[in-house]
């Protein structure tokens, strides 16, 4: 049975007609046409689908639509703007981190949430904070540099 859900995504209110158990990822990708959170595993084991729900980094592939309620959902494309990117986005570009870029959604969104919680994380805290994410291109060391840089940029 489908139900009507009103979602606040990237500052816009949108409605979706869907099964309450449907993962948020599918609503974002298939119903709202947002291609930036990616499907990686469907089991919260890689992080490619990460979005912010009220500021927290959440795996949208295992988040039922019915659990979102009025929370503010932010995806990678809503994190910054082309004119004013989020410092994490800028830092990842400056450090020339990415290769294929498929998983970067998870790294950028998780790093941004991490730095929101802790302005100056130690190297160990960054590694720990990102430990649940997967990148097969092996860009990990560049990512760690970029998070450090973003942390400095954010003062």
């Amino acid at each position, binding site marked *: 049975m489908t139900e009507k859900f009103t979602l606040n995504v990237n500052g816009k209110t949108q409605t979706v007609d869907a099964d309450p158990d449907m993962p948020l990822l599918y609503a974002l*990708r298939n119903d709202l046409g*947002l*291609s*930036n*959170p*990616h*499907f*990686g*595993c*469907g*089991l919260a*084991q*890689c992080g*490619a689908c990460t979005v912010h729900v009220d500021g927290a980094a959440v795996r949208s592939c295992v988040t039922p639509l019915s659990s979102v309620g009025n929370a503010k959902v932010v*995806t*990678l*494309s809503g994190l*910054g703007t*082309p004119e004013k*990117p989020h410092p994490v*986005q800028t830092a*990842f*570009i*400056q450090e*020339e981190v*990415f*290769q*294929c*870029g*498929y*998983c*970067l*959604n998870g790294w*950028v969104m998780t790093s941004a949430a991490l730095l929101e919680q802790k302005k100056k994380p130690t190297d160990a805290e*960054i*590694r*720990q904070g*990102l*430990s*649940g*994410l*997967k*990148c*097969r*291109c*092996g*860009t*990990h*060391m*560049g*990512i*760690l540099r970029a998070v450090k840089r973003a942390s400095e940029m954010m003062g």
Partner: protein
Amino acid sequence: MKQPRVEDDALTRGAGRFLDDAPQPGELHAYFLRSPHAHAKVSSLDVESARTAPGVLAVLTAADMKAANITSIARHVPMPGLVIPLRPPLADERVLHIGQPVAAVIAETARQARDAAEMINVEYDVLPSVVDVRQAIKPGAPQLWPEAPNNINVDWPGPAADPAANAAEVEQIIANAAHVARITVVNQRLIVASMETRGATGSYDAASDRYTLRVCSQGVSPLRDVMASVMGLKKEQLRLITEDVGGAFGMKSPAYPEYPVVLLAAKKLGRPVHWMSDRSEAFISDNQGRDAVTEGALALDDKGHFLALRVRHLANVGGFLSVAGANLATVLFAKCFPQMYRIPKIDIGVRCVFTNTLPLGPYRGAGRPESNYAMERLVEEAARITGIDRAKLRRRNLIPRSAIPFRTEVGTLYDSGDFPVVYDKALAQADYAGFNKRRRESTKRGRWRGIGISCFLEHSGGSPTEGALVAFPGGNVVSLGLNVQSTGQGHASVFPQLVAQRLGIPSEQVIHRHGDTDMGIEGAASVASRSAMTAGSATFRATEAMLAKGVVVVAKALDVAQDKVSYRDGYFEVASTNHRLSLFDAASRAKEMFARGEIAETLDTNITVDTPLSFPNGCHVAELEIDPDTGVITTLNYTAVDDNGTVLHPAILYGQLHGGIAQGMGQALMEFAHYDSENGQLVTGSFQDYALPRAEDMPPIHVGVHAVPATTNPLGVKGVGEAGTTASIAAFMNAVMDAIPGDAAATLDMPATQEKVWAACQKAKAAQGK
């Protein structure tokens, strides 16, 4: 100086366009019902109730494929004695590995297709299965193919002109040698696990009788050729399109069973048909990597000089032969020897074997890591049995610069390289001399410290032929069309830059195009670390050829002699005058002259060039610590000094090396695609069970470049994509074995997991106690 990647702005804002980000209007969804058995007869298949399920438009089986004359997707480069069994896209009478597609449901939504698949009734007669390569060749093992007795796919005698005589000669040297190091090492099977899974969207235009396949590939042209052959089409009847690709590592280059099925379904239903693998499906439908057992014997004289090498390699190609399955395990494997070392006689033999596992395919390195790992384990073993310091032993046997160009025993010609310098730099950079002090310091803390050296050399290039298209689409831009496909290597940041530099125009005026067979560019895929050298050379030649045509056009247009016209920084100039014509004006004039029939072609230039192999090489050093009470490994430091020839883009070079090292570390320390030996099930079927390297596992990596330009291509570049993986596997393993005292780890196999390392540590402690 930093050159930011052109790709990153869009990717970082979430504006990439991967296959699943680009739904086609009106598309249907395919779901593949797959075999739950490793080996079984399909005794009955009933799809009738699925056909009438909600949203379902069609259910395809082997019968539909046969009726359309699509009988096998198996294609392989010819080799004497090679058995290539038919590989029907949808299983016919038998399934040979778990995950083999049996039927395809096409429905309005992906969920409807999946739900309907549950209504398909398949009855299987389960047959005995075998998954281990050593078990598969034993008498009494289940036989997979009648045309392949003892499950032998090919028995390859090696590259020697007279293999039998060569083998006898090597045997003689081994029998008389002062020392012989012997090893047997296992390259475990690996899951490629690109973060974007595989997918394809087929469509068909009845008016033109033409198909389009949008697909995650590593180069559209070669896959188009294979798919056209599979479908029984002329090349012109099939267009392949690839946009952004989320990692591939060799795995996305071949044809797969799903592709002809979505094409045929699209034709039957008159609408595009889309399939995207989910993760658990990827584990049992993507080609897998490595999976070989190597026996090596290295003969040395009493001074530690290498005299002869014998290698016997047993490779598991899976239930069916994929595009490069046997090639990578034989030719590509053998061509890596003798790496950086002078070895006067070499005898290599490879047997490829069928088992009830997923097909073997290229995975980052594709034969090269297997070869290098065997060589570097042999050298360590040689150091152990001779008592010669391993660093000195390696140094003593390096091919000196004065011997280059160097013809090897396996038929390759090393055109360039400075191995001793690369080697010395790496040891200096890793502070090899200070290691014993660091080891003592670790020992005081109760940790066992180890250092592992790995010299490597590999051949890059694979297939020599590659094309490039330099064209003028109108306006003040040049387009550079390529067949090679970026799957994370930053092609848009590298290749247009080459054109811009040569033409003396801003790089923003050069547009990168790829991933469309309608551009008509020939070539092979982005495999074998070949894109920079082959497509780079093609880009270079195409640009030069375009300028040569430009000189003729400008001479005609300005009515001067051709030898008075030269090109500089965006303009064709006439000597001793102030007459000139801009590049873009010249291109427009050429179009006009071509339309009037005054010249044979416009300035648009599409050429293919052949680029010989290059030989990237280097020395990597890994340093790590083991907690002997728990077996936990802490990686501490990683040094890589590489010769990848001329560097086109430093950040991309470092990224490729880092990524390769991460994947090598994954194989050495954690990854293992484990099949149950009883029933052939893949036990490690998710990221929960299959470990990929994570940020917290990675050591600091220090890359030093010692570039010796290749002499075999105009840019001087060598490959880099696979170098890190080829080198790092042995570096990490040698470090683990070095850390554990005595002989307790002498026969340790990959992956060096905590459990195995702990067990070796206990053995070592017991030996110390005696």
